[in-house]
């Protein structure tokens, strides 16, 4: 069953997708599913292992489940300091 999700893009992801957020309807069970499906759509080159994800402003794992109405934050490789 398809879920309605808000997806936010940061830094290189935002530039690559050409937008900083979008509402999508996806058949996704986990954060990993969201990443992979949007990677296909936007063609981002970053491997998942270098990226991070947050769900509703909490850091999450790629195996974390996503629910209808969630906001998914996709973080390209971080580089603080």
């Amino acid at each position, binding site marked *: 069953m398809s879920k309605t999700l808000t997806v936010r893009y940061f830094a290189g992801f935002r530039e690559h997708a050409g937008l900083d957020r979008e509402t999508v309807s996806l058949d996704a069970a986990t954060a990993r599913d969201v990443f992979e499906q949007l990677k296909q759509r936007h063609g981002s080159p970053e491997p998942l292992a270098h990226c991070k994800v947050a769900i509703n402003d909490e850091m999450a794992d790629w195996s974390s489940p996503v629910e209808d109405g969630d906001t998914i934050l996709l973080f390209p490789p971080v*580089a603080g300091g």
Partner: protein
Amino acid sequence: MMQITRQAIRPDELRARLNDPAAGAYASFEGWIRNENEGHDVLRLEYEVYEPLAVTEGEKVIAEARAKFPILHADCVHRSGLLEIGECAVWVGVSSGHRDEAFLACRYIIDQVKVRLPIWKKEHYADGHSGWVNCERCATHGNG
């Protein structure tokens, strides 16, 4: 305490917040903007920070440092926005009874902050190009 700021970082003021009559040691670290990265001449840097999560994740890192090492106080401040060469991008300060734990906690905090907080930097090069810096663990050489 973890803070994100668009203002210049003032280590002397931040350091004073860690004073404690029981403190015999103070260790601090600062990341400065350098004019070169992996062979490219860098003119300036632009930090993008997702502040809500950078703060909560930074607070977690500081709490972990407190749990691992018997320190008295620890703070971290990270800049966001455009920074020039020589500016301070991140400051970590730790006070404790003895120096072992001050050094170890300070190192722990900066190491974790660099790889866990949702912060990105875009380098602007002398040749007119710019690029997002890869994460430290992904790249061959880290910065700072």
